[in-house]
């Protein structure tokens, strides 16, 4: 593919900390190579800002290969930008043309307060996992790994659900700020495995309760989450979680 250079206008959200109000700042960047990643374009801009004694833009990132879930930018109205099944760290500049204006914002959600510029607080996700996103097995207790065969399609389904990177794009993309895709991915992963069976009911009840407590919105089946999820986590997981929740709730009542 042909490489090219481009000049762009960036409108980026700047906010000093969670207590102050934010605003958009406009930056002109020149000579950006189509081979750069989106974050490398930010590196170039930040280097320039530092040399001009200006405040660089804070953003979260670490692996830069789409797996840690740290990067979190809302680009031109889309979580992680224009490419399908992609994190913003894997977005490359060949997605843009010279002369374009690009608007970059942090995740917007009541449950993810802004810490600085494009950096948000996603601790709510950890707390949802603490509520039940695990199998209670102490170290050293395990039986031989091949004791329980698991049908391949089940193991595969479980794996697809487990490939969630916890980035929060689903929440940012959802008009209601719902975390259903994230929570259902974990619930599904464990519900599909025989090892997850003993805690199947309490898990879904507790995780959903925690999700509600954190201030995430309700799911109204818009499915924007699936469209923006960089790992293609399927909304079928939401349906599965709803079933799990319902049957857990029912048997819970029955047992009283």
């Amino acid at each position, binding site marked *: 593919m042909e490489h090219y250079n481009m000049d762009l206008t960036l409108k980026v959200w700047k906010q000093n900390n969670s207590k102050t109000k934010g605003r958009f700042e406009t930056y002109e960047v020149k000579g950006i190579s189509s081979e750069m990643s989106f974050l490398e374009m930010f590196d*170039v801009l930040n280097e320039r800002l530092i040399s001009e004694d200006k405040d660089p833009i804070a953003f979260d990132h670490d692996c830069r*290969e*789409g797996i840690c*879930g740290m990067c979190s930018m809302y680009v031109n109205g889309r979580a992680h930008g224009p490419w399908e099944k992609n994190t913003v760290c894997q977005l490359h500049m060949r997605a843009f043309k010279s002369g374009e204006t690009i608007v970059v914002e942090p995740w917007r959600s009541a449950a993810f307060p802004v810490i600085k510029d494009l950096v948000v607080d996603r601790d709510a996700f950890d707390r949802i996992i603490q509520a039940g996103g695990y199998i209670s097995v102490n170290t050293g207790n395990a*039986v031989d790994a091949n004791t329980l*065969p698991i049908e391949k399609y089940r193991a595969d389904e479980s794996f697809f659900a487990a490939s969630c990177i916890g980035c929060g794009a689903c929440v940012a993309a959802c008009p209601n700020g719902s975390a259903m895709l994230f929570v259902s991915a974990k619930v599904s992963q464990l519900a599909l495995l025989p090892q997850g069976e003993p805690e199947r009911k309490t898990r879904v009840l507790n995780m959903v309760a925690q999700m509600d407590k954190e201030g995430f919105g309700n799911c109204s089946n818009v499915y924007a989450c699936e469209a923006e999820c960089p790992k293609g986590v399927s909304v079928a997981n939401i349906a599965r979680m709803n079933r799990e929740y319902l049957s857990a709730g029912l048997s819970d009542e029955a047992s009283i």
Partner: protein
Amino acid sequence: MSLDSKIPEGDLEVKWRDYKSHVKLVNPSNKRKLEVIVVGTGLAGASAAAALGELGYKVKAFCFQDSPRRAHSISAQGGINAAKNYQNDGDSVFRLFYDTVKGGDYRSREANVYRLAEVSASIIDQCVAQGVPFAREYGGLLSNRSFGGTQVQRTFYAAGQTGQQLLLGAYSALERQVALGNVKMYSRHEMLDVVMIDGKARGIIARDLITGELERYFGHSVLLCTGGYANVFYLSTNAMGCNVTASWKAHKKGAYFGNPCFTQIHPTCIPVSGDHQSKLTLMSESLRNDGRIWVPKKQGDNRKPTDIPETERDYYLERRYPAFGNLVPRDVASRASKERCDEGYGVGTTKMAVYLDFTDAIKRYGMIELGKQGLETADDKTIEKLGKAVITEKYGNLFEMYEKITSENPYEIPMRIYPAAHYTMGGLWVDYELMTTIPGLYCLGEANFSDHGANRLGASALMQGLADGYFVIPYTLGNYLADEIRTATIPTTHPAFEDTENAVRIRIEKLMNIKGSESVESFHKRLGKIMWDKCGMARNEKGLQSAIEELRALRTEFWSNVRIPGEINEMNPELDKAGRVADFIELGELMCMDALDRKESCGGHFREEMQTEEGEAKRDDANYSYVSAWEYAEGGEKLHKEELAFDVVKPTQRSYK
């Protein structure tokens, strides 16, 4: 101080068993009173924190990312080894041990490696019990693949996302302990120093990366699980935040640094595309199971790879190493690529790349699938389609990643790859119990030097991290803490905490006050270039000497001309990075000193002066069969040597021919 590796007596096979049977124990009510600090929550740290929390210790865990689930371990792709012998192909604990010692080019400790192989099977059991969705066969049992440097299939995997799945398993175990109140988690916190009281590690100073505040934490012991330092090369396959700061601070407080020059350059990474490049992306070693590596037979051949006929291709690994072919260990494969490119056979725009080609594998799998459908023949298109589907199932995410970065479709055009800095075998020196030379200070995972000698085999780092955290430290830590039950919690108003915090504060202020003209990033790039050129894939005396001079000059320049924007008491990523780069520059010098001292070639350490006629690494067992352990001292680093004894595996010239 003389180095005591505390290797238990007895035959290799009984050392760990006997150790566990006789090690001191701490009773449950005392465990509740003992506090343990775990710095780092990657595979090593998360598994350690979870396992120690389960035992009842009071644990505080730290990481610099916003969540423990994001540690660099998450990006491991290919797999994790374990001596399960599920494939009935002749694997055993002994063979895994043997392969690892040989793969490490006879520069690791036999007893440690044997223990690693011994606990490997339990790791897989534990992970499956936690709900880690490893790849399975149609019969529902676990699937295996092969990895470099071995001839059996012992690698467990979850597509190309094994590290992610293992870390999420350990993370969930950790979060469970957080929920139970046994572990307190501090995310977005960076440890900046160890606090020493009466010669023992008793706590840390950490900086809250949101507020910039310095904080003090007490622990009866401190575990560093802070990962590797390959980012000293600036460009590496590591995540951007990986750093050496925790280990380096400990080193300056008295922890010896083991084999700092042993670094691994991984053969299959996406090549550098330009100056803007911020990191390099690995293409998992598992691809070498199916991909064939080649360059054109003609120098400077500019034809498209698909236009170069079979007879004009040089499959140089298969040619040079017929027994292992494309599956030779990493150090061997990397050097072979470098050799071809240096000789002018490289491909791509920069000519610093070789091809990794899947055409044959697609055909082969296509035929197998055809057979499964009971068909004898079909047109090429159908075979290709069937074959591609198999490749997608095995490596789909890697192929996608490659295409996103290069905008080339690796199903059609061979991948271009080149070696890149990837992993560090060196790290803090630890004894058999994983304790550093500072009493009460332990080091686990990639951050320690222990198990991989001069070269790590693929899929063995995940194994080591989890072995250390789940199955080793829960025993060895007790042996130390059993004698600490009378030590009451030391208040953090103790002068040692005060002094250490002050020293950290003064350094931060000093950095901020330089107000020079060059960015941290720019210094890091310059550091990386020196290290890559002179202490990278090939090293020689002259280069290393000049690197040391250059690094000293760079250090002076850094401390007089770095520019850090912003304030101390706010979120300031540039300041965080400045501290890390300052430490990297110092580490770089030590790496070069170590490489200079080791006048032999072994594993990833290739001294150009020391090679066989065929260009292979030439070890010198008579003079260099030791672990170098460097002590930080006023007036310069001091070298100590831990002589290695090989009672079971006889060191020979490594051959993969």
